[in-house]
């Protein structure tokens, strides 16, 4: 990859990280900050503030990580970064084996 491409790739990566971290902070710290108020809303028996702490934030975290993996892996394809590390590593490890023998 050319230097400007790498730079562009890195900038896009950083932007995505910042967006996802803002959501991460809102669903955990944001929801906790207003938990006493949210508790006045009750859904299926769950006071909403309690629900965010016990379930909502967790579901959000799982989705955030899923989104990051999905978007970045797709971006890797876009920049023609093939998932070839396995093979490369295999080669070096084979070299090691040959040396050992």
């Amino acid at each position, binding site marked *: 990859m050319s230097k400007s491409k790498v730079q562009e790739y890195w900038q896009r990566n950083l932007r995505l990280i910042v967006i996802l971290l803002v959501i991460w902070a809102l669903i955990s710290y944001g929801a906790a900050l207003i938990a006493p108020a949210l508790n006045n809303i009750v859904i299926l028996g769950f006071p909403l503030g309690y629900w965010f702490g016990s379930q909502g934030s967790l579901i959000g*975290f799982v989705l955030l990580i899923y989104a990051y993996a999905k978007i970045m892996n797709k971006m890797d394809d876009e920049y023609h970064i093939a998932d070839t590390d396995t093979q490369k590593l295999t080669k070096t490890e084979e070299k090691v084996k040959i040396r050992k023998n």
Partner: protein
Amino acid sequence: MAAMSSDSGSIFQSKLVRYYGLFTLGFLALTVIILLLEISVGLSQGLIAGIYMVLTFGLYAVIGVATRTKALDEYYVAGRSVPAVFNGMATGADWMSAASFLSMAGTLWGIGYDGMAYIMGWTGGYVLLALLFAPYIRKFGQYTIPDFVGARFGSNSARVVAAVMAIIVSFTYVTAQVVGVGLVMQRVLGLDYGLGVILGLGGVLFCSFLGGMKAVTWTQVAQYVILIVAYLIPPIFMSVKLLGNPLPQLAYGQALQQIIQLEAQQNVAKKYVEPFNEPLSNAGAIAAIRQANGFFGTAMATPAPVTITDWRSTPWDFLALTFCLMAGTAGLPHILIRFYTVPSIKESRRSVFWSLFFIFLLYVTAPAYATLSRLTILKDVVGLSLTKEKAANGREVTTAIGADGKPLAWVTKMSSIGLMTIADANNDNKLQFSELTINNDLIVLSTPEIAGLPYTIAALVAAGGLAAALSTADGLLVVIASSIAHDIYFKTVNPKAKPTTRMNLGKGMIVVAAALTALLALPQLALVAQMVAWAFSLAASTLFPIVLLGIFWRRANFQGAMAGMVGGLIVTLWYLVNNYLNPANNIMGLSHLSSGVFGMIANFTLMIVVSLLTAPPPKAIQEMVDQLRNPVGEMSEGGEMIHGH
């Protein structure tokens, strides 16, 4: 197994899915069969417990022997051949310790909403791992976290400081696991505590000694299956029994409403769903010092009891604790090295997703477990008449009379060994909620018994608790061994050491670490549990900032990293000790558990200021940072490393 093309890789993966799928079904079938035998022919408790112990330990031993290895790559990083899903399960088991399995729901049971700091903290940290660390750690592609610190800051002293931090954190952590193993063996299986500790450590050693990270990883996958099955089943039973719905995670909203009503009727002071009402107190410190004095025969002065309620109903301590737990999670060495074991960067991203998914299954169930347990107590136990009874061990205890007119066996048993106390404060011979104290660590283990479920469920939970503690201990022993044998000995003292020497030293270190752990675990000091909670603050204030800036700020240099790590450690310890002994020493009501926040601020500030005041890192290191961020190509130094041995 390390050398394989992607074709044989997918065959390998489908084989794994088949093996572990069959194993899961087999384990479920076994539980159903034992359950039916218990109900129909009255299988004895000893026999049930025996079957679970022999089968699970036997299985771990078989996997340990089958995956034993002599290759260094396999020993330290499982040959970098673990597919994302399985690495996720193994990380889940590695992560979920005795604290997650045994203590977390108990804490929620006791403090309600405020315990959510642990639920959010220990899962939200994975978002930081996924976004900020995992892909770069994989790209860096060496063996340990001190490797990264040493290479990034171009210094062996930084490496040694990081290795020492990793060892301290891992040691306290592994000791707590072993205490957990001893407790499970003692409470549920009726074994002697010391014998339980030795048996448990034997199991851990067998696996990690023979096969290192490779054996540990494949055992952890099996342990994950056992622990998750064990954790999900009791709440399902309770949910059916109490709410008539087999999905506790969805249904326990009704239980919350019943708790709110019962608490109002019974005038319970601290409400279960109400946020931010934990006071600051040094009761823990006083108890820990007294216990240590009793054990070692010392005469350390105990501080005067202090309780600070000024900061109740403010969110600051809750937020700070959550943040420390998140950053600590992301900075813990035994989790970070997991991302060396996957085959590629893409796979490392998927792997964090699977890790959190598997962890999520337990963490989303823990509040349901706690809530159903709390409802059982409020509904079925509070209000019972009290009586005195002589327990099996000869102690006379206050116990409660059950619906059948006889004293409740579990209340008598738990009270007689000091895990539960009933103090009839108003002498009305009726149990109030405030008159009842139960050891939090016991909620998960005892709930099946309290809720009147068959003994098979209790034995299953015990097997799950053991799996959780053993799998974490396994991973930690590998970290301790590699820190000493790889980071300190090979990288610093004797870079010419042969691979076989390094491997033998690593194996030797695992045995030494296990022996030290046994010595630390036997006295069952309360301080050990406390130290695990502190480990997160320590990791958050030392390793987290330097790994983060090491990746994201090219200008960060050696001087900055050292100043940051040392400064962060000092500030954290200073606040921690002062607040632990006297909670009147606090800033905005933050407890000693959240002390990492101050250390982290100090670390970041020092690292940035000192780096800017000194020369930028050498060109080679700046290029290394560029390489880290570029997902194409191999790290030159990482390549060197692999060629080297």
